[in-house]
């Protein structure tokens, strides 16, 4: 069955620390991949997405993610986090030609000032 796994449920970092959030997917064939973020009190919004081409995708606010097909992974990274990055992060996947998205369970990131 198709699935998306996020193994880090809670992450606490100090400002300026580097961030890497794991995302693994289980899909047969081609896959579209997304990272969404939900800041406190705000709507869920897109950070970045990957469909094809360069496996290193850059998104908003200095985030990037790397698609590693051999590892079925799409990890989110940021070299230096800020207090304002405190949020919940969701990885999602979809199969081309479908309307269905599958989300991971989310990772709550807390950045200490």
């Amino acid at each position: 069955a198709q699935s998306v796994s996020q193994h880090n449920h809670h992450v606490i970092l100090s400002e300026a620390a580097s961030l890497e959030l794991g995302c693994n997917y289980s899909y047969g064939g081609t896959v579209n991949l997304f990272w969404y973020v939900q800041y406190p009190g705000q709507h869920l919004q897109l950070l970045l997405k990957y469909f094809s081409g360069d496996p290193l995708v850059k998104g908003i606010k200095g985030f990037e993610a790397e698609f590693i097909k051999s590892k079925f992974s799409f990890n989110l990274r940021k070299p230096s986090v800020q207090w304002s990055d405190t949020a919940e992060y969701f990885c999602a996947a979809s199969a081309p030609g479908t309307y269905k998205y599958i989300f991971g369970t989310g990772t709550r990131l807390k950045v200490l000032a």
Partner: protein
Amino acid sequence: SQTIHQWPATLVQPVGSPLSLECTVEGTSNPNLYWYRQAAGRGLQLLFYSVGIGQISSEVPQNLSASRPQDRQFILSSKKLLLSDSGFYLCAWSVGGTAQETQYFGPGTRLLVL
């Protein structure tokens, strides 16, 4: 610009009572519409999606139903709520023919069934 509205923001309902949550989208035509439930520790679970008026696809068998009476209106309903229906319900929209498109989420409705 496009906006998405959901109401109510919060709802407390007794077990066995009916439910109607509404979602409307402005500023776009023929969107794909989605209902998700977000439960603690379980992420976002897709409940229903719709690619057009009257076209509803159900992803999870359950106590809920969805309807799309107008192009930009999506309604989530139940005839009799269960305790397990408690959760945070999110509506989302996208445009385009497939699941490559960005989804835009509403503010959500927090439902507590007592």
